[in-house]
C-alpha cells in the first residue's frame, strides 16, 4: 500500500471519530460520582445548620433535616436582640448580635489586612536582603509556630493586663488589644509563606527597577506587592477565617457582652446546659458565614493561583 492509499483508507475513520455529540456521562461517569460524593461531604453539615436556622423548634435532636414548617423567627429574634420564646423571661435579655457582627468583621478584617501588610514587609526583607541575624530570625519565627497560640494564653492574659494599665486602649476587653494578640500569632507563618512566594519573583525585576530609579520602598510597592497579590489574597483570607473561628483567646480577653466577637457571643446560646437555643445559634452562624462566602467568591481566582504558583515555573 502506498502512503497515499494508506492516507485515503485512514480518512473515513478519522471522520467517524470526530465527535458529533458526546453521549452524556459516557466513559467518565465515575468522575461525576466522586464529585457528587465530595459535594455531599461538604454540604451535609451546612444543610443541618441551615435547616436548624429555619426550624421553629430549638433543639437539634427533635427535628429532621427538612423542617415541618419554615420560619424566619430565629433570624428576627437574633437581629432584634431578643432571642428565646416570646413572653419568656429571656426575651428581656439584650443580645447585641449586631455589635458582635461588626466586631467580627472589624477584628478579622483588621487582622487580615495588617497581618498581610506586616508579613509582606518582613517577607520582603527576608527574601531580598542579607543581614546579620537573618537566618536566626527566620528560624525563630518557625520555631514559635510550633506551639499553638493558646499554650501561651496565660502569658498573653498577663501581658495584656499589664499593658492595659499603661495603655488602656490596647488593654483587656478591647478589640485593638485582641487584634494585636492575633497579629503576633499569625505573623510568623504568614511571613514564611510570603517569603517563599517572593523568592520565586526574579531578582532581576528588583534590580531593573532600582536601575530605573526606584528606592527600596518603591520597589516594594510598585513591583513586589502587585506581583505577590495571589499569595497576599490567600493569606489575607486564611487569616480572616482563622480569626473568625478563634474562640479561646477572644473569650479570655473580652469581658463585656458588647465587645464580644461572633464566636464568643454565639457560644452564649449553647452554653447553658438546660436552655440551649440551637435555632437562634444556627441563625447567627448562617448570617456570620455570609461575609466569608462572599470574600471567597471574589478572591477565588487568586486563591487557586496563589496555592499552585511556585509549583511550576511561572
Amino acid at each position, binding site marked *: 500500500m502506498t502512503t497515499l492509499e494508506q492516507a485515503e483508507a485512514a480518512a473515513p475513520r478519522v471522520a467517524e471519530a470526530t465527535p458529533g455529540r458526546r453521549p452524556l456521562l459516557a466513559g467518565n461517569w465515575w468522575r461525576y460520582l466522586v464529585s457528587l460524593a465530595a459535594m455531599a461531604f461538604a454540604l451535609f453539615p451546612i444543610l443541618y445548620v441551615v435547616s436548624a436556622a429555619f426550624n421553629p423548634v430549638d433543639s437539634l435532636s427533635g427535628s429532621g433535616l427538612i423542617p415541618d414548617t419554615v420560619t424566619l423567627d430565629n433570624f428576627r429574634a437574633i437581629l432584634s436582640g431578643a432571642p428565646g420564646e416570646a413572653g419568656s423571661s429571656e426575651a428581656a435579655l439584650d443580645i447585641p448580635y449586631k455589635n458582635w457582627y461588626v466586631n467580627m468583621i472589624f477584628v478579622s478584617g483588621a487582622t487580615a489586612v495588617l497581618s498581610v501588610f506586616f508579613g509582606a514587609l518582613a517577607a520582603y526583607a527576608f527574601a531580598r536582603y542579607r543581614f546579620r541575624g537573618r537566618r536566626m530570625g527566620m528560624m525563630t519565627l518557625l520555631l514559635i509556630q510550633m506551639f499553638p497560640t493558646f499554650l501561651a494564653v496565660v502569658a498573653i492574659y498577663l501581658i495584656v493586663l499589664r499593658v492595659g494599665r499603661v495603655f488602656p486602649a490596647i488593654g483587656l476587653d478591647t478589640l485593638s488589644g485582641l487584634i494585636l494578640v492575633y497579629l503576633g500569632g499569625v505573623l510568623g507563618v504568614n511571613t514564611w509563606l510570603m517569603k517563599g512566594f517572593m523568592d520565586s519573583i*526574579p531578582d*532581576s*525585576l528588583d*534590580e*531593573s*527597577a*532600582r*536601575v*530605573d*530609579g*526606584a*528606592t527600596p520602598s*518603591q520597589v516594594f510597592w*510598585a*513591583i513586589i506587592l*502587585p*506581583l505577590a497579590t495571589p499569595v497576599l489574597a490567600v493569606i489575607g483570607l486564611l487569616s480572616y477565617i482563622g480569626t473568625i473561628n478563634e474562640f479561646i483567646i477572644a473569650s479570655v480577653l473580652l469581658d463585656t457582652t458588647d465587645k464580644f466577637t461572633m464566636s464568643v457571643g454565639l457560644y452564649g446560646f449553647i452554653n447553658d446546659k438546660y436552655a440551649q437555643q440551637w435555632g437562634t445559634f444556627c441563625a447567627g452562624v448562617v448570617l456570620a458565614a455570609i461575609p466569608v462566602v462572599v470574600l471567597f467568591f471574589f478572591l477565588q481566582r487568586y486563591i487557586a493561583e496563589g496555592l499552585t504558583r511556585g509549583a511550576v515555573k511561572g
Partner: protein
Amino acid sequence: MADVQLKEVDKIYEGGVHAVQDLSLYVKDGEFLVLVGPSGCGKTTALRMVAGLEAITDGTISIGERVVNNLSPKDRDIAMVFQNYALYPHLSVSDNIAFGLRLRKMPKQDVNQRIAWAAKLLDLTPYLARKPRELSGGQRQRVAMGRAIVREPQVFLMDEPLSNLDAKLRVQMRAEIAKLQHDLGTTTIYVTHDQVEAMTMGDRVAVMSMGVLQQVDHPQHLYDEPANLFVAGFIGTPPMNLFEGTVQVAGDDVTVTLGRATLPVAPACLQRYARVRGLDGRVVVVGIRSEDLHPASARPDNPTVEGSVELVEALGSGLMAYFRIDAESVRPAAVEAVEEAAGAEGIVAARPNLIAHFPPRLDLRLGETVPIAVDTAGLHFFDRETGAALR
C-alpha cells in the same frame, strides 16, 4: 553622554572568589564597548559593578566626572538591559517603558511623548497596551530596549540581551541594536559570551578570562594581533589552529618545524613577531588562521604540510575542511572552556587538529592525505609558558 572609567577595580566575593582582578578600562564618550569572555570570566560582575548592583571591593569607577563607587544605581544615570529582559509582568508595555520616567516625576505629557517616540523607533506602537506575557521573545527584547532608551541615560549597560533569542532573530537584533546605539550616540557597555556578537557590534572589544582583562582593542586588531593565546583561541570562528613548533634561525632566514614539516617564516610575519628571531632552537606555540591555509594547487609558491581529511563541511560559499596533521596541537584554556560548556571533552583526543577554510567545490575525499599550503605571512607566535604573543 559621558565616558566611563574603571581604575584597578577588584571584586572579591564573600566566599573568597576573586571574580574581577585589577580591572582598568576606559570607555570613551559615545563608544560601544563589548565585554566578552567565556562564562564565569567576570564580565557580568564587571557590568553589575558599573551599574551599582554589586559593590566593588577595591578601585574606583567613574561615570563622566563623578566617582560613583558609593552611589546607588538610581543615582548613576544609567539604564540596563537584562538577559531575561526583567520586564514588569503586571504592567503593560507602555507602563513598562514609562516606569523610570514616572519615578522621576516627569510631566505626563512628556512621558507620553517619550513613550510614543520609543515605540515608533522600536516598532512597538501596536503593542503598547499589551502585557509582556502576550509578546514574543523579540518584542520583549525591544520593550527592554525601549525602557532603557526613553530615560536618555548617560550610559547603557547590556547584559547578554540577545542570548534568549533564536539564532535568526539574534542576527537581526544585533544589527538593530548596533544601529540604535550609533543613532543615539549613547556610551554603551555590552556583555556577551558570543565572540561573533562582540566582533560585529563593538567599536572596541575587551576580552576577559578568569577575572582578568586580556586585551582591549578594535575587533580587527584583536583578530589580527591577539595579545596572547587566550585571545587567539577565543576570537575567530573557527578558532585559530595552534601547534607546538621549533624555531630555527639561520642568518636572516627563520623556519619553524611542525611535526615533519618545516615552514620558512615570511619576512612580513617576522616584522610583527620580532622576538621570534631570538628564539633559535626553542619550542613555541604557532598559530595559523584557517583562512591562511589553501589547497596546495592554488598556492604553488607556499610551503605545505600534509594532512589527512577527516571531515568536510560545505557552506556553499566555501568549504570548512578538518584535517589531522602530524604535529603536537595546543589547546588553550579558551577553547577548552567552550568545549566543556558544550560537553565535548571526551572526544578531543580523536579530533582533527587543523581546520582550513577552502574555496567551494573542491574534491576532498575522507581519509585521503593531501598537501595544504600555508601562507606563512599570517603565522602567529606565542610563548609556550606564558602564552604571551612574541612581539
